[in-house]
């Protein structure tokens, strides 16, 4: 009897002191590897800091990063491995709306706590299409960190309206990222009294295109729009902006919203006056942004170029803080702590609140900044209260 009691006590103790494991799904290879590697770098920094500060529940935190390759089938297998073989209770990371949509049924089957960075396609306002927020937004275990598409477009469109232009040509890549975003943008921009004179799809280099956008740009040039607004991926930046110059298209403003920008692009001649939407820049005038950028550079030897690094960093810290505050890995207790959590992250205040459908939405349109390449520097030009330089016309 005594032996049994000791065994039981040891078992309980071993369970309570077990290392907390967080499963991460991230596209480490494949076409979205830039974002995945940035997430990984952010997680590594946060992990080092968390464990240096005492870990989680008194033990070093462990993260298990699985490569989704930005592919739904691969992501599904990786998620099910994390749930069945690794037996994690918390899922982080996340990128790509297509991948997220492919995971939702399995999320609902296993129901771990999911804090999800990517997957912006909400489905809100789009008839005949069920988006991520519509499908999973109300689940108590689902937390969405990145702004939804309507929040992205609200920020982008607020910037467009602030330029005072009369007409806009919209070029968008043709997958789940650019298509719904362009449809919402067209509607919102026209509601602001600005003419959308063209809404044209193109094949991104990330999804099988060769980077020849001349046909789409020629149509935009023929429309004589004041502002060219393009929605594409990081690898589209160089061909898009160089071909705009090559075709002698000179709108007042060139504004793009890829998830990230090539690291060496700042020095490219065609970068001058190109504006873009971004979630984080090391030049953001807050102590948290500077501390993160300094620590990131010390660990990885380069400044954080992709805002996914900052999101991943803050996401892991949020899990660590919530589990420590809950005092256990009990799902209900951790969810309660995540719901009430608030701290200053590199991008701004971190907390979860209500969006159109989800009660657990992290950042909204306030996260976004617009920068413009000016003389080889990325200057923040919008919103005004964070601006480091005024917006310059390309003409």
């Amino acid at each position, binding site marked *: 009897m005594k032996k049994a009691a000791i065994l039981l006590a040891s078992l309980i103790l071993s369970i309570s002191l077990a290392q907390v494991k967080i499963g991460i799904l991230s596209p480490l*290879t494949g076409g979205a590897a830039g974002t995945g590697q940035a997430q990984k770098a952010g997680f590594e920094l946060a992990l080092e800091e968390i464990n240096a500060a005492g870990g989680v529940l008194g033990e070093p935190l462990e993260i298990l990063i699985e490569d989704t390759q930005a592919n739904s089938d691969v992501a599904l297998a990786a998620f099910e491995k994390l749930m069945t073989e690794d037996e994690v209770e918390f899922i982080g990371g996340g990128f790509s709306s297509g991948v997220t949509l492919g995971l939702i049924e399995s999320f609902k089957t296993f129901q771990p706590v999911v804090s999800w960075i990517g997957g912006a396609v909400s489905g809100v306002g789009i008839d005949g299409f069920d988006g991520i927020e519509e499908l999973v937004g109300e689940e108590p275990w689902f937390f969405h960190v990145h702004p939804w598409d309507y929040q992205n477009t609200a920020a982008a469109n607020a910037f467009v309206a602030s330029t005072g232009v009369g007409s806009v040509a919209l070029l968008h890549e*043709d997958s789940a990222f650019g298509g719904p975003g362009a449809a919402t943008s067209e509607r919102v921009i026209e509601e602001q009294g600005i003419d959308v004179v063209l809404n044209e799809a193109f094949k991104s280099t990330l999804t099988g295109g060769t980077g020849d956008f*001349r046909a789409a740009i020629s149509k935009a040039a023929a429309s004589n729009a004041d502002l060219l607004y393009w929605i594409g991926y990081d*690898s589209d930046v160089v061909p898009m902006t160089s071909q705009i110059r090559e075709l002698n298209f000179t709108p007042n403003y060139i504004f793009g919203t890829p998830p990230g920008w090539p690291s060496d692009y700042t020095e490219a001649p065609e970068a001058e006056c190109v504006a873009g939407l971004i979630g984080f820049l090391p030049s953001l005038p807050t102590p948290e942004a500077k501390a993160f950028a300094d620590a990131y550079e010390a660990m990885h030897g380069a400044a954080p170029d992709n805002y996914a690094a900052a999101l991943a960093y803050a996401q892991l810290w949020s899990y660590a803080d919530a589990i420590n505050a809950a005092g256990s890995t009990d799902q209900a207790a951790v969810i309660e702590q995540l719901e009430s959590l608030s701290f200053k992250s590199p991008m701004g205040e971190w907390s979860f609140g209500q969006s159109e459908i989800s009660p657990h939405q992290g950042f909204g349109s306030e996260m976004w900044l617009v920068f413009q390449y000016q003389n080889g520097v990325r200057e923040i030009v919008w919103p005004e209260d964070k601006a480091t330089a005024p917006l310059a016309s390309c003409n």
Partner: protein
Amino acid sequence: MDLTLLLQGILSGILASGLYALVSVGLALAIGVIGIVNFAHGEFFMVGAFLAYQLFISFGFDPVLSLFFVAPALFILGALIYRSSIQFVLKAPELNQMLLTFGIGIILQNLALVIWGGDPRSISNVPYRSIGYQVGGVSIGLVPLASFLISIFIVAGLYFVLLKTPLGRAMRAVAQNRTGASLVGLEVNRIYLLAFALSAALAGLGGVMIAVIQSPTPVVGFAFTLKAFAIVVLAGLGNIRGILGASLLVALAESLVATLVPDGDSLRNAVFFAIIFVVLIVRSRRQA
């Protein structure tokens, strides 16, 4: 329809065909001479793009200059890969050959990911990348024009080698009848090695050009491999002479659809798949 827009579409299609031909001719060479379908062809292209990027970053080499370094480097890489793997599966079932080249492609892609990372890399300071000459309302880009001319020059040079030199005759002999070529004293394995290495070098040259036009990533070769397969099928498997015409047809068809159809740019891949379907069906009917 705006006539200027139409002319721009035709011009863009013609200029794009040069690069398509350069990438495809290497693939056709491997299929035509060695009889192997090389699924790693796009990765040779990608390695060429990254080498041009690295030469720029490390030594400030202009991409035009790096053509002279990348081509020999890819030639050596192709030769090494042939010697270490391809030569052992020449008599194996085609599926095994395809799996091997597919695996080589994945290894090269992941090596690139380890060395250069997943972020798009750009050769930033290329002053001529954005230059376009305006002629009658139509823009002729300096880079597409140069890429077209260089590609045509290289492809024409390859035709010359194949038709007029002893090496080319040997390649054609081996392609027609391996056993017969061997019986008359040709070193078949050496010719295969040269053909495979040359194929890799041609893909590498295409990669250098794409390093100027867009940002190399480990998957940059994928789209061009698809086009190259379509062009090779259109020209007839292994028919190197038909590559120029097939490239022009595919590039023009894509560009015109992209220009004339609303949202046409997103139909580019559908265009060349449609061409493959039509060609395969017509050829099957003729043979039947």
